[in-house]
């Protein structure tokens, strides 16, 4: 093969390739333009360093958090894990008192009517004492 033949082949193949580039259809051109814009956006976007951490760093973080959680749980003083026993009992007693219905007490208005004389007496005594102390 002589030099002339080789250069003819090179020239013709180059021209054919250039022609084929010129005849790329509109669908492909449009998709290439979209791809270019996406690439330019990617270049303009600042790199998110947090997301670029390797996988092992996030695994190590999760492990460290788990170890810390266990240490806090078992390292805390006894009785702090939940409500103390005594406090629970006291609260239950209060609840009993509040909900208990005294047979003799009845409704509040009834109780007031039963002791109305006592309240009159107490009020009079108080008034006397106040006037005495003033006089």
């Amino acid at each position: 093969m002589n030099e002339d033949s080789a250069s003819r082949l090179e020239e013709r193949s180059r021209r054919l390739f250039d022609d084929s580039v010129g005849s790329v259809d509109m669908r492909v051109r449009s998709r290439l333009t979209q791809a270019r814009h996406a690439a330019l956006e990617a270049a303009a976007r600042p790199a998110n360093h947090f997301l670029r951490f390797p996988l092992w760093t996030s695994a190590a973080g999760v492990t460290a958090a788990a170890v810390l959680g266990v240490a806090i749980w078992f390292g805390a003083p006894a009785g702090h894990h939940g409500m103390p026993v005594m406090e629970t009992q006291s609260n239950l007693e209060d609840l009993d008192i509040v909900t208990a219905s005294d047979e003799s007490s009845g409704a509040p208005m009834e109780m007031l009517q039963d002791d109305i004389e006592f309240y009159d007496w107490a009020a009079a005594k108080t008034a006397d004492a106040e006037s005495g102390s003033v006089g």
Partner: protein
Amino acid sequence: MAQFATLSHARMAWDGPVRAPEDVALDQTRELDQFLAGIERRAFRMAQVKLRDPDDALDVVQDAMLKLARNYAAKPSNEWRPLFYRILENGIRDLQRRRAVRKRLMAWVPGPQEDPEGESQDPIDSVAAGGPDAPEQLMQAEAMNKLEVSLRELPARQREAFMLRNFEGLDVAETAVAMGCSEGSVKTHYSRAVHALREQLGEVW
């Protein structure tokens, strides 16, 4: 200012006002846009010749654009072209490997087999119907089809060297960067490719 004997010397040493980083970034984006716009169709055709599938070719070109923009946009613009083609070649090779694996797997699956080689593609399909230039276009399409078939029969490195040097006009040093080999290897691959193509296509092509 003792180091400047005269005012004219000082002016020569001063290389203009300091530019804001935003302006520099904007210029770089514009330059990258121009570079990619100038190369995208050629890269697509090169990938299509090798992969024989327009969608796969679009995917690898898009991927190469993204990788170049993300990783090498800050490099001097005269380095972009060989880097871009290196990324593109790697993408094409990866896709061809995946295809080979898929083909092996598909051989075990009963049913209609796909046509990954795209040999059934007819050059006449790519020529627009009608028009005064239709016979000329048909001849060109046929010649290009013959060239593509011959290129596919070349060893990968010879094909790569021929396409980068001849189609893309990369010089020997740029081709060596794009191919990841020495300049001597580029010359050898290219020379062998030209000889092989000449033999395959014949003197009349």
